[in-house]
């Protein structure tokens, strides 16, 4: 993506929050492996998971 277009769209997508894409370098510089693993820990759960398998039609399912 063209960088101007990228900047415009990213700024627009966060226009209603308190941060924007120009905060990324600062925030990324602060993040440690421990922060990243804590975020992973919050993500990894057995509840709230939906698994979907999409299979070809069989003669019976058509």
């Amino acid at each position: 993506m063209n960088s101007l277009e990228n900047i415009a769209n990213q700024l627009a997508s966060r226009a209603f929050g308190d941060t924007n894409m120009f905060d990324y370098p600062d925030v990324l510089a602060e993040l440690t492996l421990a922060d990243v693993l804590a975020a992973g820990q919050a993500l990894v759960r057995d509840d709230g998971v939906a698994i979907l398998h999409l299979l070809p039609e069989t003669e019976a399912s058509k």
Partner: protein
Amino acid sequence: MDDTTKRYADAGETLRRVTLPNGLRLQIVVKPEYHKTYAVFTTNFGAVDDQVRLQADAQPVVVPAGTAHFLEHKLFDKADYDAFDLFGASGASANAFTSATNTNYLFSTTRNVMKNVEILLDFVQDPYFTDATVAKEQGIIGQEIQMYDDDPNWQAYTSLLADMYPGHPLSQDIAGTVDSISHITPAILRTMHQAFYHPQNMVLTVVGNFDADELIRVVSANQAGKVTAPAPQARITHDDYDVSVVQPYSVKRLDIVRPKGYVGIKGSAPITADRAGLRQELATRLFLELIFGDSGHTYTDWYDQGVIDDTFGYEFNVGRGYNFTVFSGDATDPNRMTNAIMAALRNYRANPDVNVDRLARIIKASLASTLPR
């Protein structure tokens, strides 16, 4: 008029923010080294916003699925012209898109920036809806929806969202259904336009080669001519972090050759719109990249073993009232693929890719792709 400029040293960028007396906000980034200018006019209104309370103690107005997207299409269409043609005549190309929480109208141009900004503001803020044009659009969007319905990836994605968010607007396609849009009327479009296209609920972002002071003068003059009543809207947001309603497993049969596997993980807690929220969002993205990025062992091993192919990918989405992760890809054995994803998530602590050096490389690459210089 509120007017502030902030220099972001680490990003090497300067952002000027202006709030006009009617509440419209501007985000301005001047880039004199470029030829082009991009402008995006955004309303904080998208597909999940299917209810609005027009007065404090009134019953909510509930609108059909697909209303925000329908409104986006209809705004281009005026009594005797099409907004696309106005941009074309002024040397700009225009586009628009509706997401779950926003609707965006944009143009890019190398000339006549101010003229095109006026066209953008005017066509979005000055709606024209009649029974005949709404009926015509129902046909056009109906065909668009049938095209989506024929796309197995789209169908699967929508169905995975429905498994995670049953009964929530996210479970519906952004465009709605042929049936839901058949209930859209000019009155519904006018109501939602008045409620959510109020200047207080909108932001104009302009990035590129132009004079910022001139832009502010032109937008101020344009907005001063528009009398706006106080914003009538009280948004009703359907926050959904309830993991107990998630459908854990489903199978769909479609007219495809190669099977596909999907894993969705519904966020169980809000991610705030402040800096702490941004930290959490970016930390989550880095976690996913550490484990599942195509530069890591997991991806390479799975690829070599035929568990996944190069269609494998993941995304992390954060919106007003929800957040979720989706893994997807084609697979000879989708059960093997989704089991491998779940095992990699459970055993992340033992993954050799989880280390400080790899994290540093990923952060560097991520900066290079989001802020190219």
